[in-house]
């Protein structure tokens, strides 16, 4: 009976059903296109109804994202998407909420709200498009720009330390920390799906090429010739192997990571570090494959992609006694009158 009453099953949504009718206005060749398309495809796979999706962004090229999605979307103000999403999350447990932000939006002006969102562990998915530059404002350096980079505001080369977004997220207490890249679409899509599936704040950094102001920032990780030697794809339960011929591995020498050449027979696969997403200590080491201290070149360790860390811990809503709309509606008018009357009142006649 119950089944008979159900509406006719609708055709499943396809990737393109999530696209809005707006013309996409990023520069031709921008990495944002690939991310958009993987995002649409992930939503289709996850079968999330369009009206249940709310995408909140700040300001930046990346933050134009909501306009291109046929879902609910707010292009808010610079750096505050995380804060906006917080209010939405706390009052609307039913929605799938995504924050789309940039390295400037999310880590410069918006760094504090990001920090506290991660600390509170609200169930929000953050997609941080890291192009290591301010795109929309036409090419100033960002907190993730690499030393030496020449930009409009560092004409003779940047002399500032870059923020390590993953180390930052771990330091903030994040319960899901991952890295993807625009050019590896399927991997990226899977990370988007994993972000959704994680309960709590999911922090997904996405390397995104800005071909106008910072072209090739990640070419080491995408270029045919360099890619395999400079990246490592993390998979739970798998050893840390990389290289064009899978010839390199990483092991833990005590608590210290060490890169080894499997060809020289001193080490075998069995010696290698097995990736364990739930190990915070390992995650902290992996996050340092970025500016590994004591190593002067950034090529010594490969850049890890995938889920660095994931921890099941109650999210803010679970912790707070959550009062949904229903709870409220069950309050009768009498209650409010009692409230107004308070504990001690008197009558004037």
């Amino acid at each position: 009976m119950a089944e008979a009453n159900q509406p006719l099953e609708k055709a499943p949504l396809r990737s393109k059903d999530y696209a809005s009718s707006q013309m996409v206005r990023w520069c031709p060749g921008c990495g944002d296109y690939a991310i958009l398309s993987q995002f649409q495809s992930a939503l289709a796979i996850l079968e999330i109804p369009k009206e249940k999706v709310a995408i909140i962004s700040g300001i930046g090229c990346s933050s134009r994202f909501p306009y291109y999605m046929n879902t609910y979307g707010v292009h808010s103000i610079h750096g505050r998407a995380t804060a906006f999403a917080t209010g939405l999350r706390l009052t609307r447990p039913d929605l799938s909420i995504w924050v789309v932000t940039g390295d400037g939006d999310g880590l410069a002006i918006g760094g504090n709200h990001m920090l506290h969102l991660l600390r509170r562990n609200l169930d929000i998915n953050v997609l941080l498009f890291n192009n290591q530059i301010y795109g929309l404002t036409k090419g100033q350096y960002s907190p993730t720009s690499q030393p030496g980079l020449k930009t409009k505001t560092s004409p003779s080369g940047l002399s500032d330390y870059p923020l390590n977004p993953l180390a930052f997220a771990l330091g903030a207490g994040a319960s899901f920390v991952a890295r993807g890249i625009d050019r590896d679409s399927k991997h990226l899509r899977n990370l988007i799906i994993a972000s959704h599936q994680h309960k709590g704040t999911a922090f997904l950094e996405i390397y995104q090429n800005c071909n106008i102001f910072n072209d090739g920032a990640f070419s080491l990780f995408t270029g045919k010739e360099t890619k395999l030697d400079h990246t490592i794809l993390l998979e739970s339960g798998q050893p840390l192997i990389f290289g064009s011929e899978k010839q390199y591995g990483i092991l833990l020498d005590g608590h210290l990571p060490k890169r080894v050449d499997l060809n020289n027979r001193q080490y075998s696969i069995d010696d290698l570090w097995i990736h364990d997403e739930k190990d915070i200590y390992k995650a902290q080491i992996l996050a340092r494959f970025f500016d590994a201290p004591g190593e002067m070149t950034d090529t010594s360790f490969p850049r890890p992609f995938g889920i660095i860390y994931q921890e099941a811990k109650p999210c803010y809503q679970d912790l707070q006694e959550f009062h949904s709309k229903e709870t409220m509606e069950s309050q009768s008018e009498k209650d409010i009158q009692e409230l107004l009357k308070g504990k001690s009142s008197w009558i004037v006649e």
Partner: protein
Amino acid sequence: MSETETIIKEEVTIKFAGDSGDGMQLTGKLFTENTALAGNDLATFPDFPSEIRAPTGTVWGVSGFQVHFGSRKINTPGDQYDVLVAMNAAAFKSNLSMVKRIGATIIINTDGFDSRNLRLAEYENADSPFAHIPLEGYELLKIPVTKLTKEALADSTLGRKDQERCKNMFVLGYLLWKYNRRLDNSILFLEEKFKHKPDLLVANRKVLKAGFYFGETNESFTSRYQVDEADLPQGRYRGITGTESLVFGLVTASHKSKLPLYYASYPITPASDILHNLVALEDYGVKTFQAEDEIAAICSAIGAAYGGSLGITGTSGPGLALKTEAMGLAAMLELPLVILNIQRGGPSTGLPTKTEQADLLMALYGRNGECPIPVLAVPNPSEAFYIAYEACKIAVEHMTPVIVLSDGYINNGAVPWKIPNPDELPPIQVKFAVAPENGIDYLPYKRDVNGVRPWAIPGTPGLMHQIGGLEKEDGTGSVSYDPDNHQLMVKARQAKVDTIADFVPDQKIESGPESGDVLVLGWGSTHGVIESAVQQLLSEGHKIAHAHLRHIAPLPNKLGTILNAYKKVIIPEVNNGQLVKIIKDKFLLPVIPFSQIKGMPIFKDELVSFITKHLS
């Protein structure tokens, strides 16, 4: 029992002052409760030290509680004291200037005037603080309160410190006697408070009675006072602070509108108490969020509003400054949002624990671009409820952020409050958009006759739309850089706010004739002092009236007609003349400013004498 003369008084202001640890707040509250039950009208104001716990005995550490009560309508906590209770030298020193010059009573605890106390209060001549002041005209009652308290507890098992801590009950008992009151309800209170501490109950009750009997038996004090019942409107009353009143207004709006209330804030004096109160009301469907800063607070409230909640944020001056950018976003998104600003002394960190009305211009104009937002102002603790309620109603029905201005004086002050019946409040109409049936595109920025756009919340099938802080195309809400559209939208946003004037009451006169020599125009917390001053001048036969603005943007209809019906318009403000600018700009009238910027309410006497000058 000695013969005591009983003098009938129309109104009295008492200030209880002592060290932070002397329990003056409690003494004041119990006296007030007793006063309310005696049927007087009243108003109170606490006066906390700005330090958390300043060293005992210093002027920095003085805590006070002021209560003004009478058999006539009481508008303010009073500016000068008929009675000062000073528990120590520092309390005496810091309050003396506020004692009425003639006929006042000063009750001092002589045990708080020993040489240590005098030194801590930085009296140069550590022997006699009274040497410097002309005590003629005062009734100075020196009572060794601490000593008498200890004597009353001679057979108690309490430790010395605990015994001493009862001394505030001695003062309370004595004052209850002095004002011809009954002890029973204060005793009831003590019984409740010390339910689980029988020895403290016994001691406090004993000392309370000792104070009362001290009055009855001590021959040296001959006069007793009586303040008769006030002629208050019938109904059920309770005591309420401005903060509670505001909070109840919000919660009532949430219930009447069936919108869950979401309050996001970052602690700041004096706004924090709103959060403290709302946190306790989660059972009423209230969700609170203590954000990492004021920007996050307002942005999260906008997010909640976007999701269909009654989004509210509250703060004080420096916090409002931080919220300005996000207020622009709320105005552009045209979402309902209530922003409470509990003003304090400025600029910058200023005087956090003192009151001021100097955020008016910021509320009206402190945003980039043309960004009109309705501004309402709370006149006193009782009405805070109604203003808060109306702010929510306007926000929701006109899809706009609304600013409510109150101040430390209102929020911390307390008055007897006729408990409203929520059923009698005007309804709040919420219309969430639903998908157009005919399959035509949903237009998130299509305005109704009042210029209001629809509220379409995420989760609603068929209404998916994308909005943001960039200029939007009329109707569709798409991003638009079109020159004419921009002008149209700027004007439309202004018109939407201006239209609100037709939905709120026309401006009225609070008291006085419909035309005359002087109109005193006020806004916010000067309500009480203006009303008192005008009442006095009316009773002296002057052609004077009082009008008070509850809406500053848009200004209410009929205001112009009213202003033009008087020869002069005087605007008293606790700022350097901010409303003055608005009225001059709008009506081109040479209004007369009266400004006093001292971190406290305007003094009635000074206002009266200022007005009097302009009446002649």
